[in-house]
């Protein structure tokens, strides 16, 4: 059994490859459809001799035919190398940026994820248990309203209330710059715990609250809906009535129902994580969060091919990894799954 599962995990991991390849190809094609290139973005409005232009293009490897560029980059990727940036500044390994930016996004998404799941479970369960009542309708409405909140708008309103008006929470950044934090993982909360840095801990938590609340609430809507609907379905199943007919306590029955309702929710989580990453872009923009989202937007301005390709490939890989984890959790939780 346990050998089975490791093999399953390994094989399932192989399935990430086509996903990454497909996204790389899409981005590669799109990035090169239209004029402009990173070197021009760097040179900008300065006069530069054709020789120097050529020199710079050569440095960046952009003088090669497109298909060569395509496979060159793929070849690099195979060696775990994301290439170097092509603009502002040139030549910095993209991996350095990812190492710097990704933990920020990860920290934001993890917290938002936790918030959305907890909120979703609470509201969804509440709605399902009280199905058909006003409370249920409210919860269903909550799910819709939350889901359709426009992230920057909602974020700004929170900023206004808690940052400007009440003045109790910071509205941008990840940590107070005057706090010195020795980073290990790049996840500030974790780092401050690891290094026993109390003030960094407080500061990073404070900075996390608004962005993760924004993103978390928005995404909780989808969970509310799914949990509620699954719960309603599960609660209508015979085994739930069978539990009750055996005199099992209500909270236990609800818990078992929740466990069953949770199984399909797990599948959603993989996809939801992708949406979370998308939402993170807007959240990062609104809260000046130095993560992947803002990185990608910055890099796009300069047509930094390598950086965008690298970021997309990395994201694709990460999303693949998440869905792998989700599948494994699913397989572990649901005894019916065959692998």
């Amino acid at each position, binding site marked *: 059994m346990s050998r089975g599962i490791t093999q399953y995990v390994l094989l399932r991991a192989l399935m990430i490859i086509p996903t990454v390849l497909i996204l790389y190809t899409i981005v590669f094609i799109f990035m090169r459809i239209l004029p402009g290139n990173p070197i021009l973005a760097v040179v900008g409005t300065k006069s530069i001799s054709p020789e120097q232009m050529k020199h710079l293009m050569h440095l960046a490897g952009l003088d090669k035919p497109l298909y060569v560029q395509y496979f060159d980059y793929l070849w690099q990727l195979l060696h775990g190398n994301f290439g170097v940036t092509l603009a502002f500044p040139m030549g910095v390994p993209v991996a350095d940026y990812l190492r710097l930016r990704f933990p920020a996004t990860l920290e934001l998404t993890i917290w938002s994820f936790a918030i959305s799941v907890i909120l979703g479970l609470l509201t969804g369960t509440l709605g399902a248990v009280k199905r058909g009542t006003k409370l249920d309708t409210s919860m269903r409405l909550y799910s819709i309203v939350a889901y359709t909140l426009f992230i920057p708008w909602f974020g700004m309103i929170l900023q206004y209330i808690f940052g400007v008006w009440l003045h109790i929470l910071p509205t941008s950044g990840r940590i107070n710059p005057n706090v010195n934090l020795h980073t290990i993982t790049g996840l500030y909360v974790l780092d401050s715990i690891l290094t026993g840095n109390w003030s960094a801990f407080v500061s990073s938590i404070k900075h996390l609250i608004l962005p993760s609340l924004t993103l978390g609430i928005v995404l909780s809507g989808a969970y509310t809906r799914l949990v509620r609907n699954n719960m309603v379905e599960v609660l209508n199943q015979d085994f739930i009535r*069978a539990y009750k007919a055996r*005199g099992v306590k209500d909270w236990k029955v609800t818990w078992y129902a929740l466990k069953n309702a949770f199984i399909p929710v797990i599948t959603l989580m993989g996809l939801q994580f992708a949406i979370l990453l998308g939402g993170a872009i807007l959240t990062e923009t609104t809260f000046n969060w130095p993560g992947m989202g803002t990185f990608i937007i910055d890099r796009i301005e300069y047509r930094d091919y390598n950086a965008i390709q690298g970021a997309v490939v990395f994201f694709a890989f990460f999303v693949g990894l998440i869905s792998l984890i989700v599948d494994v959790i699913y397989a572990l939780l649901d005894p019916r799954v065959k692998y």
Partner: protein
Amino acid sequence: MLEVENLTVHYFTSVGIVRAVEDVSFSVGRREWFTFVGESGSGKSTVAQALIGLVPPPGKVVGGKIVLNGRNLLEMSEKELRSIRGKEISMVFQDPMTSLDPLRKIGDQMVEAMTEHGIDEEEAREKAVRLLESVNIPADRMDYYPHQLSGGQRQRISIAIATALEPCLLIADEPTTALDVIVQEAIMELLNELKEKGTSITFVTHDVSLAFERSDRIAVMYAGRIVEMGDADELVRNAMHPYLKALLESVPDVCSDKEVKAIPGNPPDLRNPPKGCRFHPRCPFATDICRTQEPELREVENNHFVACHGVV
């Protein structure tokens, strides 16, 4: 032992009130096998669920009494009810595929049914093993998940769980409908043994042959009402209600070459049941009074109840 009087259950759905069960009265004695038989939608399951207080929303018991061993279940608090469920009254459901929690080992589910009623874990485990053996399932299946067992096995486990605390009343709602005849036969045997041991059984089925083959007493339901009730032998020999007569004539039999006769028409829509006797649109003997006045369930002979204006 169980006395039900004027039980009425309605489903308050968004498209109208479904009068699933109306004015149903019956009693089940000790060691008795009492069967509800009727077509789909006639309200059998609703009665069964009402007995144990588990009518699913939007259904509500709107009237009547359910007296078990002298106590009216409808007046009990949720907590009291819970303490009775599983211990004095328990239930087996129709679909063995869905009546066990797919995520938990069957052993755990069995044990829980007992520990919830104050039996300690160890004892419960031992008892669970014995119970499994009593329904002919090897004890090592304790660690199996429901999907690893066949439908028949699952249904036997459901029965084992339901009878773990030796309740005096076991409600079985079509426990064999999803199963094959050979398995069905085994389950019926099992229920019969339980009855012999002293459990009363309230059985629900749409299979007329099955109902009449096994039961002591039978209530025939039509559109939410009992139309005829009495000893099984008596009813076969001396069916009085036109519906039951027609029903018995429409069922083919393995053992005889009798011709079957179809019943004309369709079952009524319970949201909007026919006025008067609910069977009158399909009844060849219907008279004016049948169209206007609802017949009451009357005892026509000793222990033989019929609800028909045509029966004197």
